[in-house]
């Protein structure tokens, strides 16, 4: 069992409150996933040619001056890359850096300077938080309530297929501005992972959900729409799933053909909210007049920005 939440804001109205709206939704679904949690939050893009990198740095000493440590890294990376790197936010687990959109170059320079660093998400719009522990504590630690943005997805994890580590936490964000959260379990993930490896796409964990994220990433890179990519998941992957996937522009949900895992959608003029359980959206403004429904088995719903 896991919990999924998502909020796609159609208007400007609640943008400043995005984090404040998402936090209680995630907290409410702790019962579905008490061991880990994570979020992807989408806000206005950085300039063309640049990406936001959500970087976890395991060796940061929480008792030391992390700001200074990150500042040093920013200077070193700017030098190594020959282009400006800036720090948008210092986090308890690392930092959000803004650097060139040459992901491979940036990642390898980063790894040279800080072998203990991991890029957990990147893109012009996205910031990714992945952590282990209770969702309430994670939201507090990362000050999620202060985040603004136009879209967010979150996940509370009850691990069934692989270990409880930060890397195994959701969302999985292997491509620019792509984030996937999954409730369920894929049974043929090893087969699909091998198939992807043959195509030069490697997973970094043995997690089943990461395979689905990489599969979707592959198709989107080839120009597929998110809807088409989700259809491919239905064809290639076997198992139980409710998926919430976003590219920042497209925000989509799908349940497996048996509808084994729950999903509730609420739509108003101002937002689309999706949660594993209705109870997790009762804190939203205007929920009483929202159109509430459950996607039927295999039905893909996409909202575009």
């Amino acid at each position: 069992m896991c919990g999924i939440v998502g909020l796609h804001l159609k208007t400007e109205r609640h943008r400043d409150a995005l984090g404040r709206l998402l936090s209680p939704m995630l907290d409410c679904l702790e019962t579905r996933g008490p061991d880990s949690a994570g979020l992807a939050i989408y806000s206005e893009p950085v300039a063309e040619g640049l990406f936001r990198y959500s970087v976890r740095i395991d060796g940061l000493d929480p008792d030391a001056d992390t700001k200074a440590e990150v500042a040093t890294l920013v200077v070193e990376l700017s030098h190594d890359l020959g282009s400006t790197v800036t720090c948008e936010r210092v986090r308890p687990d690392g930092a959000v850096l803004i650097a060139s959109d040459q992901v491979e170059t940036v990642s390898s320079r980063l790894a040279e300077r800080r072998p203990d660093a991991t890029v957990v998400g990147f893109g012009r719009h996205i910031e990714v938080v992945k952590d282990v522990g209770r969702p309430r504590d994670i939201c507090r630690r990362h000050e999620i309530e202060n985040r603004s943005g136009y879209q967010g997805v979150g996940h509370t994890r009850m691990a069934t297929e692989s270990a409880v580590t930060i890397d195994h936490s959701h969302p999985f964000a292997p491509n620019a501005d792509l984030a996937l959260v999954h409730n369920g379990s894929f049974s043929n993930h090893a087969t699909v992972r091998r198939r992807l490896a043959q195509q030069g796409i490697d997973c970094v964990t043995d997690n089943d959900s990461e395979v689905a994220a990489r599969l979707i990433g592959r198709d989107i890179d080839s120009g597929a729409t998110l809807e088409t990519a989700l259809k491919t998941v239905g064809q290639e992957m076997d198992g139980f799933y409710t998926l919430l996937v976003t590219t920042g522009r497209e925000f989509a949900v799908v349940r497996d053909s048996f509808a084994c895992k729950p999903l509730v959608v609420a739509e108003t003029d101002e937002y689309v909210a999706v949660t594993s359980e209705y109870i997790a959206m009762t804190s939203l403004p205007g929920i009483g007049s929202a159109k509430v429904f459950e996607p039927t088995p295999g039905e893909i719903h996409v909202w575009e920005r």
Partner: protein
Amino acid sequence: MGTVTDTAPETAAGNTVELDCAGMSTREVNAALHELAAGSRVLVLNPRGRHNLAVALDQELEIEIAGHAGYFIGGLCDGPSITVDGFVGWSLAENLMSGTVRVRGNASECCAASAHGGLIVVHGDTSSRAGISLKGAELAVGGDVGHMSGFMAQAGTMLIGGNAGDALGDSLYEAVIYVAGSIASLGSDAQVEDLTQEDVDRVRSLVERAGFDHVSPENVTRVASAKHLYNFDALKEQKY
């Protein structure tokens, strides 16, 4: 209308007791319900999607849940009459033994799963697997039901006032399903059978108790087991 908010009432016959979820844990709400004398009327306020409300009650209570509720509402009950003025999540009235559970909105998956007795009425739609493993209860759905409804239903009656999704009545045993609308597809070993006068009477009774005014008992489709998969015979040698 009497109001009790601080402590659980011991007796409240004749009055309506109010229990406000906003200030009570689910455990407190259920404990208060369990302590009520038979015949009590209860209004449960602010459910806001709360799970596990009004479960395992074995006295005859009149319970109104004023709003949308979550999973397992009315589960395991043996006696009370529960009405939800809203929609509910998964597994409404799971394993109901007797009494009535009525939902004025929609119900999510596995509605009335394994219900042994009593009446479950959903005025709106239910999603997948309504009446799964039904064991003797009556389930009346005013609207549509999702796929795999009636799966492995062993005994009892299902009435679907709207349309049925795919794989209706898969692996049925002795339960019988009546459908007023269309059937997307039948499940394995389910078949459409001729409607008898006994069926019409059974449906009429159910329609009346459900309070449906859009189902004509003479015009429903009867779905029951073809008994190609279900052929258990206790007198045969134990080869199963």
